[in-house]
Structure formats: C-alpha cells, structure tokens
C-alpha cells in the first residue's frame, strides 16, 4: 500500500506545484483537481488495506469526485467572468486589491 500512498503524495505535490506556479487559472483549477484526486487515492487505499469495514472510503471518494466536479463548474464560470473583464485569464493581473 506504501506505493499507493506514495503515488497520492506525488499527485498531491504535483498539484501543489501547479497551483503555485501556474499563471493560468484553468491550469490552477486542474492542479486543484489533482490534489483532490490525491486525497481520493488515499481514501481508497486506506479503505482497502488498513481497514476492511464496509465502503466508507469508497463512498467518500465518490462524494469527493462529485464535489470536485461542482467546484470545477463554478470555477470555470468564474473564469469566464474573468475573461470578460480582463480579456485574459492570467493571474498576475488579478491583484487590484491589496493591503
């Protein structure tokens, strides 16, 4: 199971990396998805290997997928707005408000 966890960790880290470094909001959203999925893998793994009661982990994973989807939709909608207002979706512009 160690490999699965490792995989999850790798995914998570990649997601992190993406979120931090991406200039593109879409990219950021995708990296976020990666992170969610890392969590998914964790859940499933634990459910499979450590404990074997029912399907809680699996269920959790499914719910997460759903939620992630919802978030993605909202995210994309907002990205549209972003594009309308800025004619672009580069994050560096989006810093009017500070301190």
């Amino acid at each position, binding site marked *: 199971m*160690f490999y699965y*966890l*490792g995989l*999850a*960790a*790798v995914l*998570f*880290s*990649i997601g*992190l*990396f993406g*979120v*931090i*470094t*991406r*200039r593109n909001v879409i990219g*950021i959203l995708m990296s976020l998805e990666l992170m969610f999925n890392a969590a998914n893998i964790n859940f499933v793994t634990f459910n499979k290997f450590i404990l074997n009661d029912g399907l809680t982990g699996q269920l959790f994973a499914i719910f997460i997928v759903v939620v992630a989807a919802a978030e993605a939709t909202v995210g994309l909608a907002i990205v549209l707005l972003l594009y309308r207002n800025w004619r672009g979706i580069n*994050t*560096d512009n*989006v*810093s*009017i*408000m*500070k*301190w």
Partner: protein
Amino acid sequence: MTENAYLIPLLPMFAFVMIVFFMRWNEKLSAGFSIAMILISWVMSLVILFETLGRHGEPYEIYFYLTSFVGINLEVGFLVDSLTAVMLMVVTTVGACVEIYSVGYMKDDPRFSRFFSYLSLFLFSMLGLVLANNFFMIFIFWELVGLTSYLLIGFWFEKKIAADAGKKAFITTRIGDLGFIVGLLMVAFYAGTFNFGGVFDKVSAGLIPAGIVTVMGIFLFCGAIGKSAQFPLHVWLPDAMEGPTPVSALIHAATMVAAGVYLVARIMNIFVGSAEASMVVAVIGLITSFLAASIGLVQNDIKRVLAYSTVSQLGYMIMALGLYGYDTAGGHHSAGYVAGTLHLMTHAFFKGLLFLGAGSVIHAVHTNDIQEMGGLAPKMKITSITFMIASLSIAGIFPLSGFWSKDEIIAATLHHPVFLIVTLLIAFMTAFYMWRLCFLTFFGKPRDQHRFDHAHESPRSMTWPLMVLGFLSIFAGWVAIPWLPHGFSSFVFHGELHHASPNIILMLISTVVAVSGIVLAYFIYYKEKISADKLAEKFRPIYKLLYNKYYFDEIYHLLILNPILKFANFMWSFDAGVIDGAVNGTAWLTIVWSNIKLWFDTWIVDGAVNGSGWLVRQGARILRFLQSGSMQFYVLFILVIVVVIALIKFEFIRIDIHWPVITVVFVLGVTLLGVLSKLAAGSEDAPSSAKQEE
C-alpha cells in the same frame, strides 16, 4: 464678662458680614457700624483687663471640640490670662483709633466701605489670634491675619507695586508658616494635643526629648520670623508700606507684626524648655534689630524709615524674649519676658502714633519723600507735636513709656555683654534716625515750596486719634515703673510678687545714649554743622550698602526666586515634552516614515511609546507586503506556514525509515521547488508591485 470674651472677635466679624452683605452701599453707615463694634469690644476688653487684674492674671480657659480623630483633638476655645488681656487692650485701642482715623484718611476713596469691612475682618482675626487657646486655632487666625494683610496691602490694586507688595508679603510669611506647620505637626505628634496647657505640661514634665523640643521650638519660631518680619524674612515689611497708611499703622506697626512676638511670648514655656532654641531666637532678634536700624539710618521714604524702625523694635522684643528663655533655662533670673511684653505694648502705641502722624503728613503734602518736606511744624501743630512725643518715646527719653520698656530690655541683656553693647548701639541709631526724620520733616526751611504751600492740618477725625495715642505713648509705660509694688511685671508673672530691681546706672546710660543720638541728628540735620552728604561721601560703600538694604531683595531674586521659576518652567517644558512629544516626535518621524498618516504617529508617539509605534509601523509594512493581493502568493504563504510549523515539530521525532516519511519528503521537496519558482516569477513583476507601493 470674661466668659463672654469670644464676643470680642465676633463683633468685628459681625461688622464685616453686615458691611459686605447689607451696608456696602452706604459708606457712612458701614464706617460708623464697624467703629461702633470695635468700640464695644474695646470696652469689653477693658472690663476683661480689670477682671484679670482682679484674678492676679490667673488664666481662664474655655474650649469645646471642633472635631476629633483618634489620637488628637482639634478644639475651639479661648484663654484669657494677663498677656491676652494686655494684647486685647492694645489691639482694640489701636484698632479703634485707626478706624476713626481712616474715616478722614480714606475719605472719597471709591472702595471706602470695603476698606472698613477689611479692617473689621482683620480685627476679628487678630483678636481671635490673641484669644486662641491652642496651636491649631492660633494657626488658623494666623493665616487669616495674613490674608487680610494681603488684601489690605493690595487695597489699591490698580497700582502694580501695591499688588506685588501684597503678594510678596503673603508668600514670604507663608514661607515662615511652612516652618510653623512642621512645628505644629511635631507638636501634634510628640505632644498629642494642641492645647497650650497640655503641650507645656508635657514639655516641662520632660516627656518630650530635649532635642525634639529644640527643633520644635525653632520650627514654631519660623512662624514668628515670617509674621514679625525677622531676618531673613524681613524683606516684605518695607514693601508692605504700599498699602494705605492706616493699614500700615494698624497691621504693620501695632498688631499683626507683633503677632510673632506674641507667639513667642505665648509659647515661652517651650523656649524655657530649651536653651538652644532660645539662643537662636535671641540671636535672630539681635541681627534683625541691628540690620533694620542701620538701614533705617539712610532711607528717605518716611514710611519706609518707620517700617525699618518697626522691624528693629520687633527684633528688640524677640531678642529680649529669647534672652529670657535662655537665662531661665540656665536657671538665672531675667527681666526679658517683662521687657518683651511691655515693649510690645508701648511700641504698639507709639509706633501706631508715628504711622498715623506720618499718614497725616503725607495726607498734607502728598509725598513720602522726606527730602521734599521740611518746616511743616508751624503748619500742622498737633501732628508735629504728637509725632515728636512718639519719637521721644521710641528714642527712650525719660519718663515717656518707651523709656521704661527699653530700659527693661537693656536690663535683660545685662549678663550678655555682646548683646548689651549692640543693644545700646541700636538704641543710639534709633534715636538718631527718628530725630533725623523729625528734623527733616518738621523743621528747617521747606525744600519744596509748592508742596509746603498746600500743606494743612488734617481734619479732626484724624487728629483726635493722634492725641489719644500720644497720651498713651506718654503714660502707658508707667505701669512698669519698677518702684510700683504690683507693677506690670508682677502682673504678667501670674501674681507672684516680683520686683524688677530698678537699675539706676543702666537708666542713665540708656538715656545718655538716646540723647546723644538725638543731638547728633540735631547737629547734622538742623544746624547742618556736619553735612550729611559729606558723611555719605566719606563712607560711600557703607552708605550704598545701607541705602540698598544690604541687597537682600536682589540676593533673594538671584538665589531663590529665579531658580524656582526657571525650575518650574523646565518642569513644564518637560511635562509638555511628555504630553505632546507628538509635536516634535512627529516631525522627526514624518521625515523617516513620510508614508505613514500623521494622526497615527501622534497617538502612537504620544505617551512616549515611540518604540512600539515604530514596531507597529514596521509590522504594518511587512503585513502590507504579505497582503500582496496575488492569490497564488496567498496559497504559497499558507503552504509555507504549514510546512514550517510541521518542521518545527519534527525535531522531536526520531527519524526512522517508515512509510510516512516518504510522503513528507515528497511534499517538502515539491514545496521548496514551488517556492523557488514562485520567487523567480515574483522577481519579474517586482517593479510593478513596487509601483503599487507608492
């Protein structure tokens, strides 16, 4: 009547109240009323005097508690013994004379009735002072007397000098009272009561350690120093002459300044308890007397001359009392007490007379400068005659009252050669300057024709008091003629039969001294055989020194007044610095942190918290940087924090290769990567953010 003695002070008080609230608008009525009141109390004090004589001066005391806290009582009451009776007599007499006198003198003054109300108030407090039976009360009236003198000196407060003089008098005496208060505190602490009798019993029973008694006595004496203008606090009295002349006569010649002497006489038992204290008293008295007399030699303002003579005479009395205390402590017998009290009485009369006379002269010629007078004798007979009587008396010419008292004083100094010599010297000087005054004022040819022409005898209301006082200053002293069986001396010493042994030689010596003084004055200022100016030239430095009153005022200004004011100002500026260091602090800060709003500084800096203000502002800056507005930066920040905290915790754990470690390592590695890359990216758009800073 004695049991109703409290009425004596209350009557003038009544007059004061009535005038202030009801009679202000009717000048005649208010004057009349206050005079009536003082006359009634004069009669009463006369009766009391006789009753006391009947009791052979047995003290009579009544009091009740004003308030009492644990340990000590503040009581109100009065004590009538021989000393009180005499003083009552003196005060009421002079008071009555002066009030009558000032009807004429203060005529057509805008604040006529207010003047009388003040006078009544003064008489109230003075009489109360005399009657007081305990330290607390005597202190209260002591202060009240000071207040009224302040009001009366500054009566013509439009004149700046008058106002200044009033302030000076008040504060100077207050400095004396400082010591007095400390003395009172010591009395309260060590004797546990304020009542004279109680305290004296404790002292004479030796319940209070001798050193304490000495200190106590000296502190109490400070009060006397202030009030009766002894060295080194004598400077206020001459200036006090700015007040109306009746005031000078009443307060600064006859009564208030005598209060100090009265105090010393009153608490004599304490001084008897400690020779050192008495010595201090005596020495102070002597110094004062000498200084004042010598200054009086060269002054030209008639009232100032009189003032200095007053100071010197008071010094006389104080010295006599001190010597009495010293000798009695040493077990010898001394005439000092009798001398002091007797001179207190006689001096009150003739000095009062002198001032009133001077007043009437001034009234006539509208100047104080004796160099502008001269030859007034034919024009104003009563004034000149009474004035000269008084001068003789003060010079101590047989058989005027001054003679007897001064003689007693000299007798008191017998065992102390230094004192004896200086005293005689002073007597000489006194005679000289008094008669210098007389000659310059009343004889010779007028030096200022214009003023001379306008001169005229004063109205009756002014001359009558002069004559009354003249009478008294001739005969008042006779009560103390040594050959009298039950004379003054045996009266003040409660009935114990005691003859002040008549000392013919001394009498002769003093008379000779006095006469020689007069003669010298005669030759210089009447016959002008010896030119005063030449003398002045010959002894230039001494003359200047005397003429400038030993530079006391200047010295005080230099050494005390200015430093205090400077210090006060410094304190103020320091305080201001603390309060609105905002002002200068902000100036400095705005240079350094010009981008910070002003009010922020003012309040942060204020209360001297610059440091924290600086920190806060620095913090604000960093936080501004963190709040950069770019969301990825926020994300990164969160991550960094998480990792950092996690790292902090890792130290506690032994690292063994175990599956979670891998995870963490991954996370860390990637995060660091992210950090680096982000920073790299951040460096690109650094300038833009820098622009945002502005």
